């Protein structure tokens, strides 16, 4: 189906004009800055925006599914194993296989891509939320009970704030993983930074796929750093924690 998509997109004018281009483009250098900047607004910029949008939706929806499931498993411990097993199962399926398998059912659409992307975020978000909720020391919970707090108050005022660092580190891993999987989604939808890579691989011109690849790496590192920063601002008490 990727080939059908590429055919629909038409031949890509990768090396448009030999008369005016720089020597780097003519000699097919590893990474031509001038070609990259000249094509940023038409090719790389929109792909980057789509990449961010696909990632944010997937992690957001994934969190809205995984966190309530973790809460449920926190109160009903016998659900931990089946829910953990199901999310791990989804996570183990290779992205390219899952995208391909969903296409006959849901078609070549953003919905198909998002279903697969969301299913990859569930394991990390479920496990980290559950770990965070379970990390609250028993004495702290008992102290809350001794102060006369109800179960609901203990959840909102003690367990959830203390679970925050683990939840944030889960969001961090899920976001970075999703940025990686969104690239593969370009095999079924013409969106994200994977799409210039896949199209660029059809020709020997380096700058297109190396540029998109570098941009994806930069996006992942930037997102990782940003979430660490937001996490520090939200949980100043956990600054000395070691995150692995």
């Amino acid at each position: 189906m990727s080939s059908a998509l590429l055919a629909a997109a038409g031949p890509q004018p990768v090396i448009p004009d030999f008369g005016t281009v720089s020597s780097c483009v003519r000699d097919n250098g590893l990474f031509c800055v001038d070609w990259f900047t000249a094509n940023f607004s038409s090719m790389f910029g929109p792909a980057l925006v789509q990449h961010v949008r696909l990632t944010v939706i997937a992690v957001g929806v994934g969190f809205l599914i995984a966190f309530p499931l973790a809460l449920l498993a926190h109160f009903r411990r016998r659900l931990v194993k089946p829910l953990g097993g199901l999310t791990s199962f989804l996570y183990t399926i290779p992205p390219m296989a899952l995208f391909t398998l969903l296409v006959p059912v849901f078609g070549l659409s953003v919905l198909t891509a998002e279903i697969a992307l969301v299913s990859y975020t569930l394991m990390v978000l479920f496990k980290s939320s559950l770990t965070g909720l379970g990390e609250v020391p028993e004495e702290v919970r008992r102290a809350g009970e001794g102060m006369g707090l109800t179960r609901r108050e203990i959840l909102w005022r003690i367990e959830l704030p203390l679970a925050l660092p683990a939840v944030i580190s889960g969001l961090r891993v899920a976001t970075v993983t999703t940025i990686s999987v969104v690239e593969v989604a370009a095999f079924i939808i013409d969106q994200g930074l994977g799409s210039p890579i896949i199209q660029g691989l059809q020709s020997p011109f380096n700058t297109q796929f190396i540029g998109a690849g570098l941009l994806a790496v930069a996006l992942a590192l930037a997102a990782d750093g940003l979430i660490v920063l937001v996490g520090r601002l939200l949980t100043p008490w956990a600054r000395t924690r070691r995150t692995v």
Partner: protein
Amino acid sequence: MHTFFASFSFMADHFGLLADRTVDHLKLSAAAVAVALVLALPLGVWLGHRGKGSFLTVSISNIGRALPSLALIAIFLGLLGIGFVNVLTALVVMAVPPVLTHAYLSVEQVDPDLVRAGRGMGLTEWQILTRIELPLALPVLFTGIRIAAVYVISSATLAAVAGGGGLGDIILNQVSYGLSGVIAAALWVAVLALAADALFGALRSRLTPRGVLAGRSG
């Protein structure tokens, strides 16, 4: 639903082809994991034994996790050209971080009292490492290898875009194999990854010393 049934008859008809590509796929994955083990395992275990380098291993694992697999293959394609070496390099880069961090953590988390007791009994550093730390470290260490192996088998599907062969070749070539062939290969890859995961899980419990298992509740 029809395509799924058709994919099963494709599997029956082209079993030789699928088996052939699976062998390629596993060769590529095994080579990548083996290189990663040679590079990362001694370093991780040594750093863990010394109890130093937590910043290094944590940074490597965080950066490694952030590197998108398709982007890596694309970048190495520019640097190393099309073919096996390019894909192998990209897969090794993906496999090193989990192996390194788990090797480090597995040895570093061993109870320091046990190490001190060993030292008191007159064991050499080498004996402490091989007789106390490594047996206790084995479960966590093996988790790292398992994560790396499953991740590499999964990412090796992308190798086809860079001429690396494997099962991705069938998934990406709908023109030759038809939709049922593509679906068959995708199902096959999914089962392969799940089987590898289960196999390594079973191996892990087999390799774990009984004394370590007894002390654990899960």
